[in-house]
């Protein structure tokens, strides 16, 4: 899993059927201190996470295929959880 921040959304009418019915969000991966870490990545979001909200997304294709219930889905990232309040070392940010 990767900690990330939601920075936007993307719409696509022509797409693989397994993408339909879910929001596609732009996730900006974060490092432990909450700073941007690498380029933005697109993920499927079932939880309706808000803008700039912190989430965890997975990069495991098989988990994503199980989630969208389509063994032929080319998707690889999907938002597993929305972070309420980070605790531990990086929590002051």
């Amino acid at each position, binding site marked *: 899993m990767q900690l990330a*921040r939601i*920075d*936007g*959304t*993307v*719409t*696509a*009418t*022509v*797409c*693989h059927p397994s*993408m339909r019915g879910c929001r*596609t969000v*732009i996730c*900006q991966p974060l490092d432990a201190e909450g700073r941007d870490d690498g*380029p*933005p*990545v*697109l*993920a499927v979001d079932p939880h309706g996470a808000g*803008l*700039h909200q912190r989430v965890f997304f997975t990069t495991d*294709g098989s988990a*994503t*295929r199980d989630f969208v219930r389509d*063994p*032929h*889905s*080319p*998707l*690889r*990232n999907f938002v597993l959880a929305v972070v309420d309040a980070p605790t531990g070392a990086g929590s002051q940010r």
Partner: protein
Amino acid sequence: MRLGHVIGTVTLHTADEALKGGNLLVVQPFSRGHFAGAPMLPLAKGNTVVVYDNLGAGLGQVIGFTEGAEATMPFTYPIPIDALNAALIDSVSYNPPAA
């Protein structure tokens, strides 16, 4: 999945049987500026990706492509690709928090 601009196509003289039915696009992945709505040129730095496409993307179009083993999942037969065009992007709304 990553976003990219279609900047060209690839034509093969001889190809694996499985590659029939789609075409190969030359795609330049987005830079952060492109997410924020910058025009296609100047292109982002970084590697250009050749993406297998069966959705019919045109030149200059923004597509969402997936890479790795997941690119072969939609096919019921073995196919030698590692990047697949999964979506023709209509709109990108990108507003990161002010730094």
